[in-house]
Structure formats: C-alpha cells, structure tokens
C-alpha cells in the first residue's frame, strides 16, 4: 500500500494535467495518484491514464469539491495530499505538507489567506477569517481546507468523514472540533497561480457559493459547539494541545 495518495479532481484540464500528475508522482516514492475525472470532454481522461494515474470517471460534472471527497474515499495512502489539476505546483513545494503530516500534524494547510493587505477584502477572504475566529482559531488567519494544496492524515480523514470534503469549510470546522492538530505549514500563493477565475468565468458567482459554504460550516458549528452549554470548548482544547504553530 502506498504511503502517500495524491487526489486530483479533473474537469477539462488537459492543458496542465500532464505536468500536474508528473509533479504528484515526484512528491513521494511510490505515491498513488488518483485523478477524479468528471464532466470532461477534452481528453483529460486519456491523458490521466497515459500518465499512470489511477482514474475514476464521472461523465457528468460533480461540481466543486465533490471530486475531492470521492477521490479521498478511493485513496489507500496513510497520508492524503490534495491538489488541483489546473495549476502546476512543483513537487518540492508540495513535500512540506506531506512531511508535516508524517511528523504528527493531522491537517496541514496552505498558509495562504488571500489578498488581505487592503481596506476591503473579497467576500471569501472575509468568510475564511471569520470562520477561524469563530472556531477559536484566529491564529490560522485565512488558512483553511478551502485552499489547495493541503494534506491530512488518515486519522483526520476518518474523524471528519471523507464525504464532508465536498464542503471544505465544513470539513475544516469538523477537523478543528474533533481536536485534530490543524496547522498552517507554508505558503503557496495559489491566488497568483490560479488563472481559472477569468478563464472559466467562475468569478463572482463562486464567491456566493464559497461564502455559503462557510455559513454552512458555521451552522454546523452552532449545533455542535454547544453540547452541554460549553461553547467552543473543543476548539479551545485543540489550541492547547498544540494546534497553535
């Protein structure tokens, strides 16, 4: 069984897919690379197979992040690394996340908070910071499972449930509530690497989807933070047990 599984959701990404899979294999010797090809009509599936990835195909688009959840269910590795197919991140910049998990971190986050040195930030950036503040982890700033790359231990995956990865902020809240060791590892500026906003016209409507995801996470938190009147206790315990970098 592979030590590291790399999960890559793919939807019409033939332009970058070959290089992304190549870097994924370079992360760890014997890594398992899972390409979740969904709603693709541009030959991405053929490319993924040719590159040696384990391919799971859905003819219809799954929508955001669902591919990551299904890929995680199929993964067999002890450590799971999540990347996107539309941006090529060199293996040397992915390894720190895997190494962190190897050294005891449960959820290794990209230390990327989006553009924050301004007076008025994007709604998603605001939502990410607010969720962390509410979870009692303002130290995480805007880092969350919403941004790739990130890695997690199998223990973390089992604790939060692979299906919850469909809504990353929800998975993030569950991880913190479960008392897992959640840390910012290093910064990969996906904002600069990510060209998709203009290219696929996802722009503003994506903002409303992701803000809604954060509200869903908050809603879950309002139901689970207070089992016996002890608000946010499990979040605080995480901090004390080494959640703070």
């Amino acid at each position: 069984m592979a030590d590291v599984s790399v999960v890559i959701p793919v939807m019409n990404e033939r332009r970058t897919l070959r290089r992304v899979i190549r870097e994924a294999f370079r992360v760890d010797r014997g890594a398992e690379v899972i390409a979740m090809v969904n709603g693709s009509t541009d030959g991405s599936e053929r490319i993924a197979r040719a590159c040696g990835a384990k391919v799971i195909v859905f003819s219809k688009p799954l929508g955001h992040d669902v591919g990551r959840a299904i890929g995680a269910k199929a993964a067999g590795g002890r450590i799971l690394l999540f990347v996107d197919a539309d941006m090529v991140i060199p293996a040397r910049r992915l390894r720190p996340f895997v190494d962190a998990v190897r050294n005891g971190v449960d959820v290794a986050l990209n230390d990327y908070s989006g553009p924050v040195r301004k007076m008025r930030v994007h709604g998603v950036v605001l939502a990410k910071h607010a969720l962390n503040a509410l979870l009692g982890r303002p130290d995480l700033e805007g880092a969350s499972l919403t941004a790739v790359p990130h890695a997690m231990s199998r223990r973390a995956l089992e604790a939060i449930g692979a299906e919850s990865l469909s809504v990353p902020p929800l998975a993030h809240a569950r991880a913190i509530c479960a008392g897992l060791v959640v840390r910012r590892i290093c910064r990969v500026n996906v904002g600069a690497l990510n060209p998709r906003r203009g290219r696929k016209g996802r722009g503003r409507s994506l903002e409303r989807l992701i803000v809604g995801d954060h509200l869903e996470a908050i809603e879950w938190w309002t139901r689970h933070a207070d089992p016996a009147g002890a608000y946010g206790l499990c979040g605080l315990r995480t901090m004390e047990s080494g959640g703070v970098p």
Partner: protein
Amino acid sequence: MIRNGHNARRPGAGFAPRTRKGGVRRAETRSIRRGPYARRGPPAQRRRPARSGLSVQGRQPSRRGLPVRRTRSRPGTLHRRRRTLAAVRRPVGRRPGIRSAGASAVRRWRDLGFRSGSAWREAHPAATAEEARAALHGHVNHAFAPGGEGGAASSKPAGAMSSAIRAYADGFMRGAGFSLPVEPVPLKGTASAVVCAGRNEAALEAVLGQLERLPLREWIVVIPDHAQTALAIAERHARSVIVPAGGWTGGAAGRALGAARTGADTVLFVDGEQPAPAGELARFLRAVDGGMDAALNARPSGIAKFHLRPPADRLMEFLNFSLGRRDLGVRSLAALPFALSRRAIDAIGAHTLAQPAKAHALLLLRGLRVGLGGSVPWRAMSDPDIRDHLEAWREAMALRGGRMSFPDRRRNRAAAGEPAP
C-alpha cells in the same frame, strides 16, 4: 480684540455684521461710503471698489488677507465638518465664514433667540444654569418644530438649518444671561442616555460634561459596586439616574440594565470612559429622532487594513456581509456610541443588549432601519465573545436557513454521500 459678546450685542447697532475687530472698522466704512465723503475715502478703500460694494451686502474681504472661507456657509457643508470639542466651544458669531449668503438669516435667528432668552429670564429671574439649558432646548424644539417659527428653516438644507439653530441657541443664552455650552437639537420625541462607569472612574466627569449640553431628559448611569468616585461624579448632575450594576459585569450587560430603566423615544448609549464631543452625539439623536431605528458609530471600518484588524472586527464584518449589509463594514452595536429608537428596543428587548452581536443581528433580521450616526473614535474590543456570535448566527439561521441567501446549486453531493444542505 473683543472676545466676549456683550459689546457686539449693543442695542440698535447690535446686529450689524461684525468684523474680527468688533465692528469698528465696519461702522467707519459704512459712514464714509454713505456720507458726503464717500468718493473721497481713503485710497485703500477706493482701490477695491467692487469688493467694497459687496461688503455693503454683508460680505467683505478678510482683514488679514486670509481668503474668505465660503465653504462653511455653503448649505450642506457645515454639518459635515468634524466638530471637535474646541469647535463646539467657539461662539457661533465669531466664525469668519458666516458672513456670506445666510448671514442675514443667522442674524435674525440670533436676534430672535436673544429676545426669547431675555423674556424667559425676566420671567425666571432666579433660574439655575440647568433650568436655562432645559428652557433653551424647549424653545429650540418649539421654534424649529415643523409647524413652528422655524418651519421654513426646516425645509432648508441641513447646513443652513444647523447654523440657524446654533444662532438661535447662542442668542438665547446671551439673552438669558448665561454662558453655558449647549448643543441644541430640535427633537420630536424624548431622549435619554445610558452610560456605564468603567474602570477609569474619573473619566465619567468629562463624559457627563458633554451629555449635559444635549437635550436629554435624563441619563442612566450604571455604577459598578465600590465605584465611589464614579458615584460622586454622577450625583453632582441633576439629570443623573443612578443604577447600581449589582451582580452585572461588563459594559454590554450594563447597557442592557440601563436600557430597561428608560422609556425615552431615543436612547443614546455612550462610553463611560471615553468622552465623545456633544456635537457628534447630537448626530445620533438627530438620526434616530428623524426615523432611524439604530444609528451606529460611523467611524469607518477602514482604520487599519484588513490583516491588522482584530478577530472581533472580522466576525462583525462577516455577520454584516451575510445579512446583506456589506455597506456597514465592521460597524455594529459592539462599538459605542450608538442610539436606538424605542421601536428597536421594544423589538429586540432591552436585555438582548447584553449580547451586542446578537442584538445587532436581530436589528437587521427584524427589518429595522439601521444606519449611521456621528463618527467617534472608539476603544477596540478585546477578544470576541464567541458565545454571543454563535447566538447571533443561530438567530439568523433560524430565520433564513443554514446557508442564508447563499445557496449551493452546483454540487452533486449525493455522489459523495454527503447530505444536501
């Protein structure tokens, strides 16, 4: 230089526009121009015929070569000017810019105020300062009510209106023979304030000193146990209603306690440790008296760039954002001062004010009119009250659903075995 007003208020010539030198030069100028030597005036006068002509209408070039500051007298600008404590203290009649366009109206109002003040004092020769203030606020309300003498003025832009009110108040106080700082605000309803004495008890003196200028029926001072200094300060003011904090702790809890003790139409909540200028506080009263339900501190959220703001600000900004009020930024009931209408207090319940985030969310959820009042620097909160915020979200989501107005119509969650939201 004549600093006090009594010279300028000489009967007869008293209401001619004055220069900084007390009107002497002006009187000469006029007699020269109108008299038989008009054409043979000093060379300095003849060199500027056009501007001298203007001065007959009430405007004249500045004596010291300073430009005449027209901006202040232009309608709509005066009320936007930042009013510092110093600005409030400066007598209205000495403002250099007031001489232009509306000057004659301002003189008329000051004259009217002077006569009202004199008449009131004649009827109340033994009046105290506190009574004079109360009388002034009553007269201002009467004069500037929609049907009153100032009815015409009320249709004018806020700037012209506010200079007329100031002139009237200034005249009234002089007429009554008192020299008291006042902040006249014509109000339709009653107004009270709620103050919580804090750790810095001595600061309460300055806070109450500013409240004293406003047309407040009373102010509720919530005093923590053993705060003897604060108690002594509050007792010195006739309008103080002292409420012992008892077992309540924290500023927000004190506000809830205080709010429950007043039935006024407008309730102003101020910081007991950081005095705010009465002129700014007046804007909160005006906003709520004019129909707003909650007037928040307009101090912009952009004090610092986002990454430097505390977690409490981020939570508030996101709460506003998700409730469709991105325009409010971080402004909320968590920042003092603010003012609430009776309708708002009754809708959310005075006790809810102990939880600022929840109270704020409820105001927005109940469709109350939430806007901005004055702009006052405020003390940043320490850590956010997570419990308060969780309850705010619970209220919001009970009414608007888990994702509120941000639905997910894209995901095929069933494929991953995740239940729909």
